[in-house]
């Protein structure tokens, strides 16, 4: 019997709020951080979830000099510092590891003007995470996972494997991404961006909104860190479509395989709800609906949280897993923001209204460029 991977303290820094409680109560009350953005780098406004940098700097001030750090570094440090404080664990302990998930890191340094005080070599992910490692006096070199839009969830899947093998007592999984001209122009070139709040799985969906966030969670062997309603990560897997680098497979094969592997490992055939990827692009949502149908999950209540936070790239799977755990603990089914009328061919049961429900487990999924998919199962310990 391998060691259970308990979900310990967590933290979310998003434009919706600083701290997991604020973010969770925000989505329970139906608040969205999405808004129309007029930006110097875009002639047409776009819809996104962006931080107010002055607020970040105010909150960051006790942790360091704001101008020494990029926005991503500041929100990431705040997220990690928060879970360290809540859990009392230390990264200078050699039985503790930091895994950091990001798709693009400090890529905006490629486009900053010369007046920036941040050295351009921080665009290299290992330089950025060495900064995190030094800041937190890490005994182990932080491990970076950069695997497109499944990075956050895949980091948790990887952390679970390492933890259960007994390699570490605690693994802090953190992740983040920001919105910059780099990503906005790139997704625009794919015609994948919506200029209004996104509508995952809806018939009138027009594409994604980008969002910024950092999140962190402690995966731990220590049950006493898991709170009064302990939740265990009971399964996790990834799989590739082997179909197309920028388009999901038509039959949802990669996601189907990841779902089957994660369910098998967790010993479940159904769940209380599914926290799906749901980017609101035509092809992603369609693919997911087919994979969930094929996996026998058509009746399971399902949401995408992209309508609250936008697509936060490397943070998404992590942030959405954390909020899913809070749904389990509090018995709240969260509505899939932006959904009105089903616009996908697979049978799925999209949650229309937030409400109370007795929940024992949930499935989290993510899919991304490069044909990658990940799925994980989280279960209340007393329900195992």
């Amino acid at each position, binding site marked *: 019997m391998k060691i259970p991977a308990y979900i310990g303290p967590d933290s979310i820094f998003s434009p919706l709020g600083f701290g997991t409680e604020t973010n969770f109560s925000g989505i329970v009350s139906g608040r969205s951080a999405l808004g129309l953005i007029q930006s110097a*780098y875009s002639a047409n406004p776009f819809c996104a979830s962006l931080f107010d940098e002055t607020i970040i700097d105010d909150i960051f001030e006790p942790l360091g000099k704001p101008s020494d750090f990029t926005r991503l570094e500041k929100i990431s440090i705040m997220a990690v510092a928060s879970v360290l404080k809540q859990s009392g664990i230390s990264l200078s302990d050699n039985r503790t590891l930091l895994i950091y998930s990001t*798709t*693009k*890191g400090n*890529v905006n340094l*490629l*486009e900053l003007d010369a007046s920036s005080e941040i050295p351009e070599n921080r*665009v*290299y*992910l*290992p330089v950025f995470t*060495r900064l995190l490692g030094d800041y937190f006096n890490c005994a182990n*070199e932080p*491990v*970076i*996972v*950069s*695997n*497109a839009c*499944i990075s956050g969830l*895949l980091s948790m899947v*990887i952390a679970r*494997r*390492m933890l259960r*093998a007994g*390699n570490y007592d605690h693994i802090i999984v953190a992740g983040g991404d920001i919105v910059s*001209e*780099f990503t906005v*122009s*790139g*997704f*625009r*070139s*794919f015609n994948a961006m919506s200029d209004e709040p996104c509508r995952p799985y809806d018939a009138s969906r027009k594409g994604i909104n980008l969002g910024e966030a950092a999140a962190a969670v402690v995966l731990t062997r220590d049950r006493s860190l898991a709170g009064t309603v302990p939740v265990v990560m009971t399964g996790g*897997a*990834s*799989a*590739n*479509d*082997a*179909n*197309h*680098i*920028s388009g999901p497979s038509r039959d949802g*094969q*990669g996601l189907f*395989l990841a779902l089957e*592997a994660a369910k098998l*490992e967790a010993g479940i055939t159904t769940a209380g709800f599914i926290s799906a990827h749901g980017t609101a692009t035509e092809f992603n949502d369609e693919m997911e609906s087919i994979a969930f149908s094929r996996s026998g999950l058509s009746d399971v209540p399902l949401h995408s949280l992209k309508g609250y936070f936008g697509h936060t790239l490397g943070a998404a799977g992590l942030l959405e897993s954390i909020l899913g755990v809070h749904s389990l603990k509090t018995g709240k089914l969260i509505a899939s923001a932006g959904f009105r009328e089903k616009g996908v061919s697979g049978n799925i049961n999209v949650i229309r209204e937030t409400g109370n429900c007795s929940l024992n487990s949930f499935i989290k999924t993510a899919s*991304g*460029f*490069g*044909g*990658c998919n990940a799925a994980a199962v989280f279960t209340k310990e007393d329900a195992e």
Partner: protein
Amino acid sequence: MKPVISSFCHVKNNTVRVDAESQFEGDPLLPFPEFASSAFRHLGVAYPKFFKMDNLSKLALIASEYLFRADPAFLAVGGENTGIVLSNYASSLESDRIHAASIASKQAYFPSPSVFVYTLPNIMIGEISIRNRITGENAFFVTPFFNTNLIVSYVNLLLEEERTKACLCGWVELDGPAYEAFLYLVVPSSGTRKNSNFSEHSTDNINLLKNLGFGIL
């Protein structure tokens, strides 16, 4: 039942070596894109998609093609049971720079989806998966140097699970004119394969192989 290394490949200094034996030597003065084209043509396979890839994916694909040619039995375990775990230092920085340059000037603003899609390091995993119908576990790590301990220990954890029976692993780094790939195949030590000559998939063995015939990786 310990996993073993069935084959390994270095692509470096405009040469391709499999199991430390030279398979292809390009003109040492050629820049990488020309070397990559000639190394791929040398294989004699028709795969036009190769020529549309960015340099990082080309490097990964070349190393994987030479490896699979050396050990065709590797792919026989089935795509669903084959994992791909890769790593590098510079992520997708070359394509990142090209995309950033395409949006640097408001007068010449031409972001391209065919460039942007390569601004993720795991795209090389997708390209290898498409080429070989591999649908198993994926992971892309970014590390300051080839982290033998991380890759060996994580891949061995995957192989302890029933689903993953074989894994393509290694390092694919490209930044400016400098590049270097070290890929290898890990297979189970049981079954029908004649693998008595294979060495165990351990940190020590990979540390030996990664620099074999070359300088420090």
